[in-house]
C-alpha cells in the first residue's frame, strides 16, 4: 500500500508540473500575443499591398475535389474557394485512416487556410494522414488556379 501512495504522489506531481508549465506559458502567451498581433497587422498591410499588385485572389471561386494517398487508403477532400481565397477544406472520405490520427491530421486544415496554399508542414505524429489531406488539397487547388 505504501508503494501505491508513493506512486500516486509522483503521478500527481508530474501532472501538477505539466499544469504549472502550461500556466506559465499562458501568462507568457499574453505578452507574445500582443507582439504577434502587431506583426500580423504589418503582414496584413504587406499582403494587402501585394494583392493590389497581383490583382485579387489567386484562385477561381468554386468547389474543387482532390484525392491523395493517406495512411491506409485514399483521402479525398473538397476545397471551397470564395472571393479568390480558400475558405474551407472538407474531408469527404478517409476510410483507411484511423480515428484519432485523422482528428489530429485535421489540424492541417486551418494551416492550409491561413497559408492560402497546400504547401504547409505536416502534423507531427499524424504524418501520413495529414500528408493525405495536404496532397488532396493540393490536387484540388491545381484545378482552381487562375
Amino acid at each position, binding site marked *: 500500500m505504501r508503494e501505491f501512495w508513493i506512486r500516486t504522489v*509522483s503521478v500527481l506531481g508530474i501532472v501538477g508540473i505539466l499544469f504549472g508549465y502550461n500556466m506559465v506559458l499562458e501568462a507568457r502567451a499574453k505578452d507574445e500575443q500582443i507582439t504577434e498581433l502587431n506583426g500580423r497587422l504589418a503582414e496584413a498591410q504587406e499582403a494587402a499591398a501585394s494583392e493590389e499588385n497581383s490583382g485579387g485572389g489567386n484562385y477561381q471561386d468554386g468547389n474543387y475535389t482532390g484525392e491523395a494517398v493517406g495512411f491506409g487508403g485514399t483521402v479525398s477532400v473538397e476545397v471551397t474557394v470564395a472571393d479568390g481565397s480558400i475558405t474551407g477544406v472538407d474531408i469527404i472520405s478517409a476510410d483507411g485512416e484511423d480515428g484519432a490520427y485523422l482528428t*489530429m491530421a485535421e*489540424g492541417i486544415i486551418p494551416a492550409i487556410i491561413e497559408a492560402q496554399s497546400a504547401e504547409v508542414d505536416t502534423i507531427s505524429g499524424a504524418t501520413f494522414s495529414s500528408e493525405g489531406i495536404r496532397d488532396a488539397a493540393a490536387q484540388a487547388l491545381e484545378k482552381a488556379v487562375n
Partner: protein
Amino acid sequence: MKKIEIHKLTKKEKKKLHIWLRAIIQLLFFIFIPSVYTAAFAGVKYIFNQIGARESIELTAFLTILIVICAYTVVFGRFFCGFVCAFGSFGDGVHALYRAVCKKLHKKPVRLGAKLTSWMIYLKYIILILIVGLCFAGVYDRARGTSPWDVFSMLHAGNFQLRDYLPGLIILLVLLVGMCVQERFFCRFFCPLGAIFSFLPVFPFFGLYRHRESCIKGCKACSNGCPADLGLPEEGSAAVQGECFQCQKCIDVCPKSNIHCGIRKLRGNEVLFTLLRAGILLALFLWMGI
C-alpha cells in the same frame, strides 16, 4: 444463467474457456482497433515535443487517449496490455505459433535465462528516456524510420511504402525472433508505453489476488507459470505490480484455484469480469472516437 454454467465447468474446461475468451478479445481488438497503443504513445511524444519547443500542451486526440488509457490502468491494472494492445496480441500470436511448431517438430522451445531477463526489463526505461529525449530536442522526426511500431501499423493498414522505414523493418524482424523465444518479449523488455504503465499506481481493488493461506506447501506453480517471471510474495496476496500485464494465466495454473481477480467477494467470476473490463474499454474507445 451463464454464471451457473460457468460454476459447473471442470477446471480443464474453465481453463480452455479462459484461453479462448482471451484469444477472441485479442483478435477482435487486433482487427478493429489496432492503433490505440501508437496513438497513446504519440501523446507522450507530443508532450515532450511541446515542452522542447516551449509551446503549451493542449488536449489533443492523442493526449486524450493517453490520459484515458492511463486512468483505466490505474483502476484495472494493465488489462489493456494483456488483452487489447495490438502489438502485444501480435507478439502472443507469434509466440503461440513458435510453440506450436516446436511441439510438432518435437523440439524443446528455446527460452531466455531468468538472469538475463531480470535485467532486460530495464531496457524499456532506457528506450522511453531515449525517445522522450529525442522529442524534447525536437529531432525525433529524423529518427522516424527506426520505429518498428510505425512499420507494423503500416503493414496492418496495408500500406507497403516502406522505403524510408528500412531500419524499423529490420528491428521488427529482430523483435519477431525475440517474440518467438520469449512470451511478451517486446512488452517486457522494450515497450516504452509499458515503461510508463509500470510507473503508475494501480488500485488494489480489481487486481489479481491470491488466497495464500490455502496453498499447497511450497507450491510455486503461479510464479513458475508467469510469463512476466513475477515472483509472487510468500505471504498474503499477490501484490499488483507494474510489471504484471494481466494475462491472467496464474488463475488457471493454480492447482487449488486460489488466485482470483475482480471483486473479492465474487470468486470464480473471472469470465464476466473480463467481459466487463473489455466492454468498458471498448466503450471508452468508442466515446473517444477511435
